[in-house]
């Protein structure tokens, strides 16, 4: 067990070092949220909606790092020819993925800093009326949801080269389903149904409720649903990791760039 913890910690450290010098990472947490906050504030202006622009920009960056960068990591391993080597190690892929993912979450969380800064300095807007305890808990629940989704998706990237292009293509779609920049209640009913099986959606609703958005205060329910869905993903992920060890070995797709 301690050997696995050590391996995950080392994967985290490696990933942090690689990311720190990776321009895509720095674009992802620094520039990308900025552009969306600016767009959001320009459209939503002042009033009660600016929280959506500022927090929303941060959420996009946070999610983007966890989801796209998490997938990128596997794709990069494939490109550099190291995917075979980590698959050939006596350490399960999930241990390595967890380490790497923690580093993407660290960088992703940084997204909130440029988002808040540009709102404050360029538009003189900030997120007000924060209810600290529910806000903090909601943030943790959201982080858990991101973590579980990304862990579950990673084996798909190892198995199929096209999996990454699918999730990458749908990155913006997820902003819609998660209600990152506007409430999902305005979406067509069928999309709301799709959004409701998406764990981050519930945590994001709680997060915005904690900034005074008029959703009611059913925090416990929202947190519980989000956590339950996240755990559901992990169960699916458990099967996927078992599958990846067999399937990737059968097709020999590990080596292909």
């Amino acid at each position, binding site marked *: 067990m301690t050997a696995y913890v050590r*391996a995950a910690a*080392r994967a985290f450290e*490696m990933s942090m070092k*690689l990311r720190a010098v990776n321009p895509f990472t720095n674009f992802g947490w620094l520039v990308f949220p900025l552009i969306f906050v600016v767009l959001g504030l320009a459209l939503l202006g002042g009033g009660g909606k600016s929280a959506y622009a500022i927090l929303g920009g941060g959420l996009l960056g946070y999610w983007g790092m966890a989801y796209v960068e998490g997938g990128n990591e596997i794709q990069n391993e494939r490109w*550099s020819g190291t995917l075979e*080597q980590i698959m050939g*190690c006596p350490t399960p892929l999930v241990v390595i993925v967890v380490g790497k993912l923690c580093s993407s979450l660290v960088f992703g969380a940084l997204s909130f800093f440029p988002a808040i800064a540009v709102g404050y300095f360029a538009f003189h807007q900030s997120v007000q009326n924060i209810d600290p305890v529910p806000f903090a808990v909601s943030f943790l629940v959201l982080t858990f949801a991101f973590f579980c989704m990304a862990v579950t998706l990673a084996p798909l990237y190892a198995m199929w080269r096209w999996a990454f292009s699918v999730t990458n293509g749908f990155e913006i779609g997820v902003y819609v389903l998660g209600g990152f920049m506007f409430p999902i209640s305005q979406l067509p009913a069928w999309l709301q149904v799709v959004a409701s099986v998406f764990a981050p959606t519930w945590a994001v609703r709680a997060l915005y409720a904690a900034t005074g958005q008029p959703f009611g205060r059913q925090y416990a329910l929202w947190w519980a649903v989000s956590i339950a869905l996240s755990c559901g993903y992990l169960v699916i992920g458990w099967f996927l990791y078992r599958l990846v060890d067999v399937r990737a070995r059968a097709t*020999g797709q590990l080596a292909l760039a």
Partner: protein
Amino acid sequence: MRFMGTSAIQADQLRKTYTTTRGLIRRERKDHIALRGVDLDIQRGELFGLLGPNGAGKTTIVKILTTLLLPTSGVARILGLDVVNQAWAIRKRIGFVFGGERGLYWRLSGLDNLRYFADLYRIPPDVSRRRIGELLETLDLKGREHDKVEGYSRGMKQRLHLARGLLNQPEVLFLDEPTIGLDPVGGRELRGLVRRLSNEGTTVFLTTHYMLEADEICDRIAVIKKGEIVAQGTPSSIKTGAEDQGVVEFEIEGLPAQRIEALRQLPAVATVIVEERELAQVITIHCSRPGELAASLGSLLDGMQVRNVSVREPTLEDAYVLLVSN
């Protein structure tokens, strides 16, 4: 040598078929047979070489034996463990190095690379620290371990690969074309190192298409062609396979295609290789009873100027060419 008499690597009727699909609308399935029933039995401590042309199935065998690829049928065992069902137990006890420069984190230091894989191989920290130090020393990377890998020379990258492959002190080491792209000095150093590892008891499975490499260091060799083993034995026994054979070489100017074809048709001739030089062609003929052929060349190549005729004993390369050509 330790553990002599027990098999380190066994393969029984190993087959691998890759299925590829192509086309956007009408999906076409195409089977490519990479291995057609390969048998191997390699003893502990042996240094075994697998020779074959590109695309013959060398890498496929190595990937199956290192648990990275599943065979379509057949059985393979490493140290008595099954490569399909006991992959985890095998992975702890083997090392593998694939040739070329890929497979390292170029933007990190050599030391970072080694530490990372040491942890992935679940080596306790105190052990790994000592072992990394030793490996850096042995592989002549000391002093450069803090530099980024992207600044390393090809030879250094290859030595770093080898260091990574040796981190867990593997009982069986797989080397897939380890000297590819190395200069002659680098290649010789690597061969010396591999020989030393083998002398210390490590079983080494090496693929290569450099004949000299195989001849120089391998205890035993197998030649693979289109997914089948066509010869197996010590380097000298493989040469003996070509013993009644010999090689006739000569230079000639403008030998027309139909005469080359006529040479090929002679009963004693196995292969004719034509190499175009600036002003002449160099013809290499593998044949039985080379002396007789050389004597009769004059009448065969009537009216043409033949220079530098030589008749020689077969080398491992000749034996190999004979085995893999049609």
